[in-house]
Protein backbone atom coordinates (compact mmCIF):
# COMPACT_ATOMS: atom_id res chain seq x y z
CA UNK A 1 0.00 0.00 0.00
CA UNK A 2 2.73 2.42 0.95
CA UNK A 3 4.63 3.91 -1.95
CA UNK A 4 8.11 2.62 -2.62
CA UNK A 5 9.26 6.19 -2.58
CA UNK A 6 8.91 6.60 1.16
CA UNK A 7 10.75 9.92 1.10
CA UNK A 8 7.50 11.46 -0.10
CA UNK A 9 4.74 11.96 2.46
CA UNK A 10 2.32 14.10 0.51
CA UNK A 11 1.83 14.65 -3.19
CA UNK A 12 -0.87 16.70 -4.85
CA UNK A 13 -1.37 17.33 -8.56
CA UNK A 14 -3.85 19.80 -9.99
CA UNK A 15 -5.79 19.74 -6.73
CA UNK A 16 -9.02 21.71 -6.93
CA UNK A 17 -11.95 22.53 -4.68
CA UNK A 18 -14.97 24.42 -5.94
CA UNK A 19 -17.95 25.72 -4.05
CA UNK A 20 -21.19 26.79 -5.67
CA UNK A 21 -21.68 26.82 -9.43
CA UNK A 22 -22.12 28.98 -12.52
CA UNK A 23 -21.90 32.66 -11.58
CA UNK A 24 -21.54 31.79 -7.91
CA UNK A 25 -18.61 29.45 -8.47
CA UNK A 26 -15.78 29.93 -6.01
CA UNK A 27 -12.55 28.10 -6.64
CA UNK A 28 -11.23 27.73 -3.08
CA UNK A 29 -8.26 25.67 -4.20
CA UNK A 30 -7.08 26.19 -7.73
CA UNK A 31 -4.90 23.62 -9.54
CA UNK A 32 -2.51 23.11 -6.66
CA UNK A 33 0.63 20.99 -6.98
CA UNK A 34 2.53 20.08 -3.83
CA UNK A 35 5.16 17.68 -2.59
CA UNK A 36 6.09 17.27 1.06
CA UNK A 37 9.16 15.24 1.94
CA UNK A 38 9.52 12.99 4.95
CA UNK A 39 10.70 14.96 7.96
CA UNK A 40 9.99 18.32 6.35
CA UNK A 41 8.26 21.20 8.09
CA UNK A 42 6.19 23.11 5.56
CA UNK A 43 4.32 26.30 6.33
CA UNK A 44 1.51 27.49 4.08
CA UNK A 45 0.79 31.20 4.40
CA UNK A 46 -1.71 33.55 2.93
CA UNK A 47 -4.45 36.03 3.82
CA UNK A 48 -7.71 34.87 5.40
CA UNK A 49 -9.96 33.23 2.87
CA UNK A 50 -7.11 32.36 0.48
CA UNK A 51 -8.06 28.67 0.68
CA UNK A 52 -5.19 27.46 2.84
CA UNK A 53 -7.42 25.68 5.37
CA UNK A 54 -9.39 24.07 2.58
CA UNK A 55 -6.13 22.88 1.05
CA UNK A 56 -5.09 21.36 4.38
CA UNK A 57 -8.44 19.57 4.62
CA UNK A 58 -7.95 18.09 1.16
CA UNK A 59 -4.40 16.95 2.00
CA UNK A 60 -5.52 15.38 5.27
CA UNK A 61 -8.58 13.63 3.87
CA UNK A 62 -11.04 15.74 5.86
CA UNK A 63 -12.62 16.90 2.64
CA UNK A 64 -12.89 15.61 -0.93
CA UNK A 65 -11.38 17.51 -3.86
CA UNK A 66 -13.50 18.60 -6.84
CA UNK A 67 -10.63 17.62 -9.10
CA UNK A 68 -7.00 16.59 -9.22
CA UNK A 69 -5.12 13.94 -7.31
CA UNK A 70 -3.74 13.66 -3.82
CA UNK A 71 -1.54 11.01 -2.23
CA UNK A 72 -0.73 10.47 1.41
CA UNK A 73 2.13 8.08 2.14
CA UNK A 74 1.82 6.80 -1.42
CA UNK A 75 -1.90 6.06 -1.04
CA UNK A 76 -4.30 7.85 -3.37
CA UNK A 77 -6.87 9.68 -1.21
CA UNK A 78 -9.21 11.12 -3.82
CA UNK A 79 -10.34 7.75 -5.15
CA UNK A 80 -10.71 5.63 -1.99
CA UNK A 81 -13.98 4.97 -0.17
CA UNK A 82 -15.23 6.70 2.97
CA UNK A 83 -14.19 3.95 5.36
CA UNK A 84 -10.71 3.60 3.92
CA UNK A 85 -10.36 7.38 4.01
CA UNK A 86 -11.41 7.51 7.66
CA UNK A 87 -8.86 4.82 8.46
CA UNK A 88 -6.09 6.70 6.61
CA UNK A 89 -6.97 9.86 8.51
CA UNK A 90 -6.84 8.09 11.87
CA UNK A 91 -3.60 6.28 11.19
CA UNK A 92 -1.59 8.69 9.13
CA UNK A 93 -2.59 12.20 10.12
CA UNK A 94 -2.48 14.03 13.44
CA UNK A 95 -4.58 17.18 13.40
CA UNK A 96 -3.97 20.28 15.51
CA UNK A 97 -6.52 23.09 15.39
CA UNK A 98 -6.60 26.72 16.42
CA UNK A 99 -9.31 26.15 19.03
CA UNK A 100 -7.61 23.01 20.43
CA UNK A 101 -10.82 20.90 20.17
CA UNK A 102 -10.20 19.10 23.45
CA UNK A 103 -13.05 17.32 25.21
CA UNK A 104 -13.85 19.56 28.19
CA UNK A 105 -15.17 16.77 30.37
CA UNK A 106 -12.09 14.59 29.99
CA UNK A 107 -8.68 14.96 31.68
CA UNK A 108 -5.53 15.66 29.66
CA UNK A 109 -4.60 11.96 29.74
CA UNK A 110 -8.09 10.88 28.68
CA UNK A 111 -8.03 13.33 25.78
CA UNK A 112 -4.66 12.06 24.60
CA UNK A 113 -5.55 8.36 24.85
CA UNK A 114 -8.75 8.77 22.83
CA UNK A 115 -7.26 8.28 19.35
CA UNK A 116 -5.40 5.12 20.44
CA UNK A 117 -8.62 3.71 21.93
CA UNK A 118 -10.52 4.53 18.73
CA UNK A 119 -7.82 2.75 16.73
CA UNK A 120 -8.37 -0.38 18.80
CA UNK A 121 -5.63 -0.19 21.46
CA UNK A 122 -6.23 -1.80 24.85
CA UNK A 123 -7.00 0.51 27.79
CA UNK A 124 -3.62 -0.20 29.29
CA UNK A 125 -1.64 0.36 26.09
CA UNK A 126 -3.56 3.59 25.40
CA UNK A 127 -2.93 4.86 28.92
CA UNK A 128 0.76 4.06 28.69
CA UNK A 129 1.04 5.81 25.36
CA UNK A 130 -0.84 8.88 26.64
CA UNK A 131 1.41 9.13 29.70
CA UNK A 132 4.46 8.87 27.47
CA UNK A 133 3.18 11.57 25.11
CA UNK A 134 2.27 14.00 27.88
CA UNK A 135 5.77 13.60 29.20
CA UNK A 136 7.11 14.32 25.74
CA UNK A 137 5.20 17.59 25.53
CA UNK A 138 6.34 18.52 29.03
CA UNK A 139 2.98 18.09 30.76
CA UNK A 140 3.48 14.93 32.84
CA UNK A 141 2.56 16.93 35.95
CA UNK A 142 -0.73 18.08 34.39
CA UNK A 143 -1.92 14.65 33.26
CA UNK A 144 -4.95 14.57 35.56
CA UNK A 145 -6.04 18.16 34.87
CA UNK A 146 -9.19 19.11 32.99
CA UNK A 147 -8.60 21.37 29.96
CA UNK A 148 -10.30 24.27 31.79
CA UNK A 149 -7.51 24.17 34.41
CA UNK A 150 -4.79 24.49 31.77
CA UNK A 151 -3.36 27.60 30.08
CA UNK A 152 -3.82 28.10 26.34
CA UNK A 153 -0.30 26.94 25.58
CA UNK A 154 -0.75 23.85 27.75
CA UNK A 155 -4.06 23.00 26.07
CA UNK A 156 -2.43 23.22 22.67
CA UNK A 157 0.39 20.97 23.87
CA UNK A 158 -2.19 18.41 25.02
CA UNK A 159 -3.75 18.67 21.55
CA UNK A 160 -0.32 18.06 20.00
CA UNK A 161 0.20 15.02 22.24
CA UNK A 162 -3.19 13.73 21.09
CA UNK A 163 -2.25 14.34 17.45
CA UNK A 164 0.86 12.18 17.95
CA UNK A 165 -1.09 9.31 19.48
CA UNK A 166 -1.06 7.00 16.48
CA UNK A 167 2.44 7.97 15.32
CA UNK A 168 1.11 9.85 12.31
CA UNK A 169 3.04 10.16 9.11
CA UNK A 170 2.31 13.88 9.19
CA UNK A 171 1.03 16.42 11.71
CA UNK A 172 -1.32 18.93 10.09
CA UNK A 173 -1.90 22.10 12.03
CA UNK A 174 -4.40 24.84 11.18
CA UNK A 175 -3.43 28.16 12.81
CA UNK A 176 -2.01 26.37 15.88
CA UNK A 177 -0.94 29.64 17.51
CA UNK A 178 -3.98 31.64 16.43
CA UNK A 179 -5.47 31.69 19.93
CA UNK A 180 -2.21 32.02 21.85
CA UNK A 181 -0.25 34.89 23.36
CA UNK A 182 3.47 35.32 22.81
CA UNK A 183 4.62 33.10 25.67
CA UNK A 184 2.26 30.29 24.72
CA UNK A 185 3.25 30.65 21.07
CA UNK A 186 6.87 30.16 22.08
CA UNK A 187 5.88 27.01 24.03
CA UNK A 188 4.21 25.53 20.97
CA UNK A 189 7.01 26.58 18.61
CA UNK A 190 9.60 24.97 20.87
CA UNK A 191 7.58 21.76 20.94
CA UNK A 192 7.14 21.70 17.15
CA UNK A 193 10.84 22.35 16.77
CA UNK A 194 11.81 19.46 19.05
CA UNK A 195 9.42 17.10 17.25
CA UNK A 196 10.69 18.28 13.88
CA UNK A 197 14.27 17.65 15.02
CA UNK A 198 13.17 14.11 15.93
CA UNK A 199 11.99 13.63 12.33
CA UNK A 200 8.28 14.45 12.48
CA UNK A 201 6.78 15.78 9.23
CA UNK A 202 4.59 18.90 9.56
CA UNK A 203 2.24 20.83 7.33
CA UNK A 204 1.19 24.03 9.05
CA UNK A 205 -1.32 26.52 7.75
CA UNK A 206 -0.84 29.90 9.37
CA UNK A 207 -0.68 33.62 9.01
CA UNK A 208 1.78 33.83 11.90
CA UNK A 209 5.13 34.62 10.29
CA UNK A 210 6.90 33.34 13.44
CA UNK A 211 5.87 29.79 12.54
CA UNK A 212 6.69 30.29 8.90
CA UNK A 213 10.13 31.57 9.85
CA UNK A 214 10.94 28.40 11.79
CA UNK A 215 9.77 26.06 9.00
CA UNK A 216 12.05 24.54 6.37
CA UNK A 217 9.94 25.86 3.54
CA UNK A 218 7.19 28.39 3.18
CA UNK A 219 4.55 28.48 0.48
CA UNK A 220 2.45 31.56 -0.17
CA UNK A 221 -1.08 31.20 -1.37
CA UNK A 222 -3.55 33.71 -2.76
CA UNK A 223 -7.06 33.19 -4.14
CA UNK A 224 -6.66 29.43 -3.86
CA UNK A 225 -3.51 29.33 -5.94
CA UNK A 226 0.20 28.89 -5.37
CA UNK A 227 2.06 32.22 -5.37
CA UNK A 228 5.63 31.40 -4.45
CA UNK A 229 7.91 29.32 -2.33
CA UNK A 230 10.72 30.28 0.03
CA UNK A 231 13.31 27.91 1.45
CA UNK A 232 14.47 29.16 4.78
CA UNK A 233 17.09 26.62 5.74
CA UNK A 234 20.69 27.76 5.78
CA UNK A 235 21.99 31.22 5.08
CA UNK A 236 22.49 33.46 8.04
CA UNK A 237 21.95 37.17 7.99
CA UNK A 238 24.76 38.11 10.30
CA UNK A 239 24.62 39.54 13.76
CA UNK A 240 21.48 39.71 15.86
CA UNK A 241 22.88 42.79 17.56
CA UNK A 242 22.68 44.73 14.31
CA UNK A 243 18.89 44.25 14.35
CA UNK A 244 18.47 46.29 17.54
CA UNK A 245 21.00 48.98 16.76
CA UNK A 246 23.59 47.63 19.18
CA UNK A 247 26.33 47.54 16.60
CA UNK A 248 28.19 50.70 15.91
Amino acid at each position, binding site marked *: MIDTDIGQVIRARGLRKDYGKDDGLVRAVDEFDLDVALGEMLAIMGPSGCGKSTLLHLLGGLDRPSGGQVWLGGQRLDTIGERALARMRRRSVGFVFQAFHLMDELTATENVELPALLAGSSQRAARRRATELLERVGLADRAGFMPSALSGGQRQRVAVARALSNEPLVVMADEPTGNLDTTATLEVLRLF*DALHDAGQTFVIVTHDSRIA*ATADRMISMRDGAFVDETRLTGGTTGSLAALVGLES
Partner: protein
Amino acid sequence: MRQEVVLAMLAKVPSHGYELRARLGEALGPLGDAMNAGQIYVTLGRLEKAGLVTCERTPGLPDRPERKVYGLTPAGQQRVSDWLIEVSWPKPDLAEFHLKLIAAAAAKLADPVAIVDTQRRELLRRLRDVQRAAMAEPDNSDAALLLEGVVLRLQADLHWLEACEQNWTIRKRKP
Protein backbone atom coordinates in the same frame (compact mmCIF):
# COMPACT_ATOMS: atom_id res chain seq x y z
CA MET B 1 25.23 52.27 22.32
CA ARG B 2 24.44 55.64 23.83
CA GLN B 3 26.58 56.90 26.67
CA GLU B 4 23.47 57.34 28.81
CA VAL B 5 22.90 53.58 28.80
CA VAL B 6 26.30 52.93 30.35
CA LEU B 7 25.71 55.77 32.76
CA ALA B 8 22.31 54.49 33.86
CA MET B 9 23.66 50.99 34.44
CA LEU B 10 25.93 52.53 37.08
CA ALA B 11 23.10 54.30 38.88
CA LYS B 12 22.24 51.48 41.27
CA VAL B 13 25.72 51.03 42.67
CA PRO B 14 29.29 51.99 41.68
CA SER B 15 30.78 49.10 39.75
CA HIS B 16 33.84 47.62 38.14
CA GLY B 17 33.90 47.60 34.37
CA TYR B 18 33.46 43.85 34.26
CA GLU B 19 30.39 44.02 36.53
CA LEU B 20 28.90 46.57 34.20
CA ARG B 21 29.57 44.30 31.25
CA ALA B 22 27.97 41.32 33.00
CA ARG B 23 24.86 43.37 33.76
CA LEU B 24 24.55 44.47 30.14
CA GLY B 25 25.20 40.93 28.97
CA GLU B 26 22.37 39.55 31.09
CA ALA B 27 19.93 42.19 29.91
CA LEU B 28 20.78 41.66 26.25
CA GLY B 29 21.38 37.90 26.09
CA PRO B 30 22.45 36.77 22.61
CA LEU B 31 21.96 40.33 21.35
CA GLY B 32 24.85 41.42 23.53
CA ASP B 33 27.30 38.89 22.11
CA ALA B 34 28.75 41.42 19.73
CA MET B 35 29.23 43.89 22.58
CA ASN B 36 32.79 45.06 22.58
CA ALA B 37 34.48 45.27 25.99
CA GLY B 38 36.87 47.93 24.74
CA GLN B 39 33.97 50.07 23.62
CA ILE B 40 32.57 50.16 27.15
CA TYR B 41 35.91 51.25 28.59
CA VAL B 42 36.23 53.94 25.95
CA THR B 43 32.74 55.16 26.88
CA LEU B 44 33.62 55.12 30.59
CA GLY B 45 36.75 57.14 29.82
CA ARG B 46 34.69 59.74 27.95
CA LEU B 47 32.12 59.92 30.72
CA GLU B 48 34.90 60.46 33.23
CA LYS B 49 36.38 63.25 31.15
CA ALA B 50 32.96 64.87 30.90
CA GLY B 51 32.67 64.84 34.69
CA LEU B 52 29.68 62.49 34.70
CA VAL B 53 31.51 59.57 36.24
CA THR B 54 34.11 59.26 38.98
CA CYS B 55 36.68 56.58 38.92
CA GLU B 56 38.12 55.31 42.18
CA ARG B 57 41.09 53.05 42.30
CA THR B 58 40.64 50.30 44.85
CA PRO B 59 43.61 48.42 46.30
CA GLY B 60 44.28 45.57 43.90
CA LEU B 61 43.89 41.94 44.82
CA PRO B 62 46.17 39.36 43.23
CA ASP B 63 43.24 37.49 41.67
CA ARG B 64 41.46 40.63 40.56
CA PRO B 65 43.68 42.80 38.48
CA GLU B 66 41.00 45.38 37.71
CA ARG B 67 40.96 48.09 40.28
CA LYS B 68 38.79 50.85 38.91
CA VAL B 69 35.33 51.35 40.36
CA TYR B 70 33.07 53.70 38.42
CA GLY B 71 30.27 55.72 40.01
CA LEU B 72 28.03 58.62 39.07
CA THR B 73 28.81 62.23 39.90
CA PRO B 74 25.83 64.53 40.71
CA ALA B 75 26.00 65.73 37.11
CA GLY B 76 25.92 62.10 35.98
CA GLN B 77 22.85 61.45 38.10
CA GLN B 78 21.15 64.48 36.57
CA ARG B 79 21.97 63.22 33.07
CA VAL B 80 20.43 59.82 33.89
CA SER B 81 17.26 61.47 35.24
CA ASP B 82 16.96 63.57 32.09
CA TRP B 83 17.50 60.52 29.91
CA LEU B 84 14.81 58.52 31.71
CA ILE B 85 12.10 61.07 30.97
CA GLU B 86 13.29 61.77 27.45
CA VAL B 87 10.86 60.65 24.74
CA SER B 88 12.81 59.37 21.79
CA TRP B 89 12.15 56.43 19.56
CA PRO B 90 14.04 54.94 16.62
CA LYS B 91 12.38 55.80 13.32
CA PRO B 92 12.29 53.10 10.67
CA ASP B 93 13.19 54.46 7.27
CA LEU B 94 10.35 53.10 5.18
CA ALA B 95 10.38 55.98 2.73
CA GLU B 96 13.61 54.80 1.14
CA PHE B 97 12.19 51.39 0.28
CA HIS B 98 8.90 52.91 -0.86
CA LEU B 99 10.72 55.25 -3.23
CA LYS B 100 12.88 52.42 -4.48
CA LEU B 101 9.73 50.63 -5.66
CA ILE B 102 8.28 53.75 -7.24
CA ALA B 103 11.53 54.55 -9.06
CA ALA B 104 12.06 50.96 -10.20
CA ALA B 105 8.55 50.82 -11.64
CA ALA B 106 8.61 54.27 -13.23
CA ALA B 107 11.92 53.76 -15.03
CA LYS B 108 11.17 50.09 -15.68
CA LEU B 109 14.53 49.30 -14.09
CA ALA B 110 13.27 46.34 -12.13
CA ASP B 111 10.08 44.57 -11.16
CA PRO B 112 8.83 46.07 -7.88
CA VAL B 113 7.15 42.78 -6.95
CA ALA B 114 10.49 40.99 -7.31
CA ILE B 115 12.17 43.61 -5.13
CA VAL B 116 9.50 43.19 -2.46
CA ASP B 117 9.88 39.44 -2.67
CA THR B 118 13.64 39.54 -2.18
CA GLN B 119 13.21 41.88 0.76
CA ARG B 120 10.55 39.64 2.28
CA ARG B 121 12.86 36.63 2.14
CA GLU B 122 15.60 38.58 3.84
CA LEU B 123 13.23 39.67 6.63
CA LEU B 124 11.98 36.11 7.04
CA ARG B 125 15.56 34.93 7.47
CA ARG B 126 16.13 37.60 10.09
CA LEU B 127 12.89 36.63 11.79
CA ARG B 128 14.06 33.04 11.76
CA ASP B 129 17.35 33.96 13.48
CA VAL B 130 15.63 36.07 16.12
CA GLN B 131 12.87 33.53 16.66
CA ARG B 132 15.46 30.79 17.16
CA ALA B 133 17.27 32.96 19.69
CA ALA B 134 13.97 33.65 21.49
CA MET B 135 13.15 29.94 21.60
CA ALA B 136 16.51 29.25 23.21
CA GLU B 137 15.93 31.77 26.02
CA PRO B 138 14.47 30.66 29.35
CA ASP B 139 10.95 32.01 30.04
CA ASN B 140 10.80 35.53 31.42
CA SER B 141 14.46 36.29 30.80
CA ASP B 142 15.19 39.96 30.21
CA ALA B 143 16.70 39.14 26.84
CA ALA B 144 13.55 37.25 25.78
CA LEU B 145 11.52 40.43 26.18
CA LEU B 146 13.93 42.33 23.96
CA LEU B 147 13.88 39.54 21.37
CA GLU B 148 10.08 39.68 21.38
CA GLY B 149 10.30 43.35 20.49
CA VAL B 150 12.54 42.52 17.54
CA VAL B 151 10.16 39.74 16.43
CA LEU B 152 7.14 42.05 16.55
CA ARG B 153 8.89 44.77 14.55
CA LEU B 154 9.96 42.29 11.89
CA GLN B 155 6.39 41.01 11.74
CA ALA B 156 5.11 44.55 11.26
CA ASP B 157 7.58 45.08 8.42
CA LEU B 158 6.51 41.78 6.86
CA HIS B 159 2.86 42.89 7.01
CA TRP B 160 3.75 46.06 5.19
CA LEU B 161 5.71 44.16 2.54
CA GLU B 162 2.65 41.96 2.05
CA ALA B 163 0.59 45.07 1.40
CA CYS B 164 3.29 46.34 -1.01
CA GLU B 165 3.30 43.05 -2.87
CA GLN B 166 -0.47 42.98 -3.27
CA ASN B 167 -0.60 46.57 -4.36
CA TRP B 168 2.20 46.29 -6.92
CA THR B 169 0.82 43.02 -8.24
CA ILE B 170 -2.49 44.76 -8.99
CA ARG B 171 -0.73 47.74 -10.59
CA LYS B 172 1.27 45.41 -12.80
CA ARG B 173 -1.90 43.84 -14.20
CA LYS B 174 -3.22 47.23 -15.26
CA PRO B 175 -1.87 48.58 -18.56
